[in-house]
């Protein structure tokens, strides 16, 4: 197991988990999100290829109401 930081909270993950698998694990709809890995925005097209590493900091954003 590895531990990552997901939106500020510790999250345990199996080895070789991709960013897409993490999103699925969290029951989030990948179509309406943006993902930031260690302060870099990662294009959706690469989520399936990138494996989470121990201590990664991952933040997921969604659209909310605003003016």
């Amino acid at each position, binding site marked *: 197991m590895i531990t990552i930081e997901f*939106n500020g909270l510790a999250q345990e993950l199996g080895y070789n988990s991709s960013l897409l698998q993490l999103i699925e694990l969290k029951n989030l*709809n990948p179509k309406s999100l*943006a993902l930031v890995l260690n302060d870099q925005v990662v294009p959706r097209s690469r989520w399936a290829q990138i494996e989470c590493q121990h201590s990664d900091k991952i933040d997921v*954003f*969604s659209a909310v109401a605003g003016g």
Partner: protein
Amino acid sequence: MLSIADHQFDSRLFTGTGKFSDAKTMLAAIEASQSQLVTLAMKRIDHNKDFDDLLTPLQQMGVKLLPNTAGARNAKEAVFAAELASEMLATKWIKLEIHPDPKYLMPDAIETLKAAEILCAKGFTVLPYVHADPVLCYRLEEAGCAAVMPLGSPIGSNQGLATEPFLEIIIEQANIPVVIDAGIGAPSQACRAMEMGADAVLVNTAIASSADPVQMAKCFNQAVNTGRQAYLAGLGNVEKQAKHTSPLTNFLNL
């Protein structure tokens, strides 16, 4: 028809999605407003709240989405927010807003210009929210912004067009669309902005905080259309002295 960058809009009323009591009311109000450009913000997903999908119903409605950079305190954060929005919504359109002061939410002119230069160079369609500063608006136009969005009064204040004389200068000088944003609190104020020759207005709080947001959205739509028609028809001159509209027949001297 209003053109911004490569996009045409039938409606000159842009709306925000904030502050509505619930999503159903917000969607009904946007529909009633006939707005075709709708703003959104972005947030880190909250672990303790159900994920509320705002996007799907807006996309189904067919409106164009304009994500904002609210929360950015400087140019670097705003550029990051724009990239986030671009990835999330597959759009290069961005409402650039940088307001580090939470009390009055006054836009930071220097950071906004810096961010606009970077984002325009990266190919974004940038609509910056700014103070009603004609010189700054000119500089943003030079930087390649698609429109400027000067404020009427502080965000969400419903104080109306406190900056009217400066908005008039901006409208006179700009070669890109001028969208009056922030502070418009009543349909009459939106109408006035359009009579002055603004290309569009962005209204959020005045609709969302009405007791009947759907009806208020309709009223804003009518007011914006009326103001635009009046501008096109041409307002009469304002005179200091009275000028009679009827022949002054001397009945008493017969």
